[in-house]
């Protein structure tokens, strides 16, 4: 009996039966993610999978105690409070971001996602900016202090929830694969890919900077960087890394970085959302 079903399924697959295609995209994404994660699990057998949220500080005890010291006085509480205020504040048309996007609680954990209506990946900061624009606000925009604070507030309202990204269909799979391709794409005069630094050479140093592993790239954003004494949303961090290869970075919140975020966030599935988090 079982064998008959298998044969039938095989046949349906060969014929490209639409019923099976629906299940195909999630399985393909999961297989690719597994291969990607396994590379890193093997490279760092001592890191517990849940600890990848700590980035470079997951690498050893020394770094971890540095991290704990950095967190004694969280520098981002004021930013969260300001973001919270902006969330319910009436914008030019009298309505608030909350009217546009709903309750802050748990919102971060619903992003990024593939929007089957527009066939695009939606990322939270981009949606916030779009709402603000639609409501006649000209301050809440890419790179502004406002969007950073809102980003921090929204992360804080999803703390403890887990990253849960799905790849529901073939178009979503195409976006996921675009993100994956960009991860391996060499850019700039230095001809470096994300994978060069965060996979093949992760744990090693570029000058004095230790390179973090490729898992846990998204769940702690925005980061509060001590070096910049301020918040850095994920796309700005990605932009900085691309610039370091001496390439012109993709647009913030454009499809390239959004697909990359989608891929990286899928890799992070199951990790606990902890943003905003302190980084050097």
């Amino acid at each position: 009996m079982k064998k008959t079903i298998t044969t039938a399924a095989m046949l349906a697959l060969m014929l490209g039966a639409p019923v099976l295609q629906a299940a195909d995209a999630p399985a393909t994404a999961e297989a690719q993610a597994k291969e990607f994660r396994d590379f890193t699990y093997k490279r760092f057998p001592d890191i517990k999978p849940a600890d990848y949220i700590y980035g470079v500080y997951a690498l050893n005890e020394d770094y971890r105690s540095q991290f704990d010291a950095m967190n004694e006085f969280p520098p981002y509480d004021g930013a969260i409070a300001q973001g919270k205020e902006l969330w319910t504040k009436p914008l030019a048309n009298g309505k608030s971001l909350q009217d546009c996007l709903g309750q802050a609680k748990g919102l971060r954990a619903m992003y990024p996602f593939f929007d089957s209506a527009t066939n695009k990946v939606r990322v939270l900061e981009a949606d916030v900016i779009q709402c603000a624009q639609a409501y006649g606000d000209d301050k809440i925009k890419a790179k502004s202090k406002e969007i950073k604070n809102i980003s921090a507030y929204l992360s804080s309202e999803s703390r403890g929830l887990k990253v849960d990204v799905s790849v529901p269909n073939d178009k979503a799979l195409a976006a996921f694969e675009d993100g994956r391709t960009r991860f391996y794409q060499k850019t700039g005069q230095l001809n470096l890919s994300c994978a060069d630094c965060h996979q093949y050479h992760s744990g090693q140093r570029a000058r004095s900077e230790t390179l973090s592993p490729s898992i846990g790239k998204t769940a702690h954003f925005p980061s509060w960087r001590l070096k910049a004494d301020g918040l850095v949303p994920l796309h700005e961090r990605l932009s900085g890394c691309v610039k370091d290869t001496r390439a012109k970075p993709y647009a913030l919140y454009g499809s390239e970085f959004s697909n990359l975020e989608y891929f990286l966030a899928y890799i992070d599935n199951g990790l606990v959302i902890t943003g905003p988090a302190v980084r050097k």
Partner: protein
Amino acid sequence: MQNFALGTPRHLAFALLAGSLALSGYALAADEKAPAKELTGKELAFDASKGNCLACHMIVGGDQPGTMGPPLIAMKARYPDRQALFEVVWDPRHKFPNTAMPPIGAYGILSKDEVNKVVDFIYGL
């Protein structure tokens, strides 16, 4: 100023732009030196805006080396043929496909002259 820029032939505008970029990179180092001082092989290898080999390689005499690539020691023993060493620095992709090391010469990070100086320097290590 804007009129001047607009009226400037394109090649001149480029030269100006390149000049200001180079200046900003060297603003500190250039202070006590004559403007167009030629860098030595060692300086080219260490300078972050030039070869930046130190970003990835331990090199004797260099501070805070990276560890992405192997230490550059005993180069003569490992590359008896100097030309082979030149080729690796010029475009490491031939010997190491998909390497993280940038194509130093092939992508114009350093000129041929500069690569030769760097190779002379590391050949003595």
